[in-house]
């Protein structure tokens, strides 16, 4: 879910752990990656300002939009306090990434353009020098949070723009160093997947703990085909699509979910995927030659197994609250008891294990984290 991604960025990483990393990946079939990036940016900014996030500052590397765009974006979302309260710093790689304007200005060929300059913006003119960029990011980040143990987040818009100037290995090195830095809590970046080969996309996905992939919904694809073939004029007042969110958990499990999004004037709204497009929420078990699933009979047999700690070993009748269904209890011959009945405690001088079976509603090996939706 998109909001779980924002929460993960807000929560950052634990001591000694690499920073959380998010890749927002789109293509021309669904070119709204910037909107998702902006949504994540505003959510994280809001959390930073309200002191809910682990990071206390944000360094934004702006390559495909100007700094003024982002300041206006944040203002439009009600996030205005970036003059007195320095929590964001933008590295401007948009206006002069290769130093052309500076060179022309130094040779008196053009005048310098007076544009609105924000105090918390630094222009950098050599996008090909990633070592310098890394030093600059760390320097301004420390300036936001201080030299202590304060942490900051880093956002890059976009890595596709960087890959035009630097090699994949250099970029991967930069991202790896960012993730490995003690004071960086989380990072996220935008990638246009159809501008690169599969290897580049795979490398960036591998380096990420979370990936948001934008896709066309089947409904919007059919609609577009109809439009192109038949309709003279078509106008729709919002942009729709779907996202696939892949999150790697600390325990190594991968969770994949699907949502639909709608972009309108107020921003992005996410909703559960429609049943037709919810096919991704399936088991992630790999297709192998041996069976990893349980048949119905095997499942029932498993439920009938009496676990060692469920009986006292003294031949007495088991009396235990059992959350299993009536069907299986009928086979065991045990009366369903809606109320708890503790096993009789004998004064044998030994300890007894009193076990209350949890509900069987949760599937075994489920990686559902019941605390996942907490917003503490």
């Amino acid at each position: 879910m998109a909001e779980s991604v924002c929460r993960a960025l807000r929560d950052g990483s634990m001591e000694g752990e690499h920073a959380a990393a998010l890749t927002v990946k789109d293509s021309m079939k669904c070119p709204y990656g910037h909107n998702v990036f902006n949504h994540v940016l505003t959510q994280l900014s809001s959390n930073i300002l309200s002191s809910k996030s682990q990071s206390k500052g944000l360094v934004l590397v702006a390559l495909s939009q100007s700094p003024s765009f982002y300041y206006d974006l944040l203002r439009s979302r009600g996030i205005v306090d970036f003059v007195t309260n320095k929590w964001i710093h933008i590295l401007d790689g948009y206006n002069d990434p290769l130093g052309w304007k500076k060179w022309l200005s130094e040779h008196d060929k053009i005048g310098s353009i007076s544009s609105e300059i924000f105090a918390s913006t630094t222009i950098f003119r050599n996008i090909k020098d990633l070592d310098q960029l890394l030093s600059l990011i760390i320097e301004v980040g420390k300036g936001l949070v201080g030299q202590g143990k304060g942490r900051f987040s880093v956002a890059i818009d976009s890595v596709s723009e960087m890959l035009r100037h630097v090699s994949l290995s250099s970029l991967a090195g930069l991202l790896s160093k960012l993730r490995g830095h003690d004071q960086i809590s989380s990072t996220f970046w935008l990638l246009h997947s159809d501008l690169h080969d599969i290897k580049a996309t795979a490398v960036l996905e591998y380096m990420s703990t979370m990936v948001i992939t934008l896709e066309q919904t089947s409904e919007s694809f059919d609609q577009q085909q109809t439009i192109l073939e038949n309709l003279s004029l078509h106008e729709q007042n919002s942009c729709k699509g779907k996202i696939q969110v892949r999150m790697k958990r600390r325990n190594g499990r991968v969770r994949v979910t699907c949502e639909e999004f709608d972009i309108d004037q107020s921003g992005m709204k996410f909703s559960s995927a429609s049943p037709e497009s919810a096919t991704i929420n399936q088991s992630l078990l790999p297709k192998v030659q041996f069976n990893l699933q349980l048949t119905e009979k095997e499942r029932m047999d498993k439920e009938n197994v009496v676990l060692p700690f469920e009986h006292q070993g003294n031949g007495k009748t088991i009396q235990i609250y059992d959350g299993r269904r009536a069907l299986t209890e009928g086979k065991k011959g045990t009366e369903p008891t809606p109320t708890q009945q503790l096993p009789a405690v004998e004064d044998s001088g030994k300890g007894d294990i009193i076990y209350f079976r949890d509900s069987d509603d949760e599937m075994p090996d489920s990686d559902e984290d019941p605390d996942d939706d907490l917003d503490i």
Partner: protein
Amino acid sequence: MNQTRNLLDDALDLNNNNNGGQVVVIEDCIETSGALGCNLAMQRESERFHFLDMLSMHCPDEEEEKLCEGGLVSLYEKIQKAVEVSSSTEGNKNSVTIMIDDISLVEVAANVSSNHVSDFLHYCLTLTSDFGCTLVILSHEDVYSSMEKPMLILQMEYLADVLIKTEPLAIGLASDIHGQVSLLIYFLTVVNRGRYEKRSLKTKTSNFQFKIRDNNVECFYPGSQT
């Protein structure tokens, strides 16, 4: 002619003076005879039209050559100067349009790689935020017909606020109709590329058919031409 302008202008909303800072990408092909280009040479003497002929551009000197993009830096310099002069006139801010005809030949004319052309386009893009001007780029798709869609075309499509494609008719040649035009307009979040402004958020798709006349192109809705 008036009808043609109104039809396209309505679709593009060009008469709206708040439309500064947009990027328009036009993709055509040889079957449509370059319909969306027009005879601009007639406009040379007009003070409102600055014509930069890449074919007669001077070769970059040693200093510029070190910048690797050579002739493109020089071209950008000329464009910025022209935009500055035009924008300085009272009432002309946000009314300047930069037209590149055509980007597919810039590689050849400037003897650079497509990556350098992308750099040049990026710098032209910054002018849309600095001066509020509109950038119109023409590209011929069939220059690249022997390969997969090149990165340059895709990069331009990502930049575009308006994408116009001309194609031949699916049914083949016709005497009265020379092709079809599809416009895809993203009114997403950016009006002026340097500034974020809320706008009516919508996408707009229009399909016209067109006929090439002597000095212009007539557009009409499918089925409306008798």
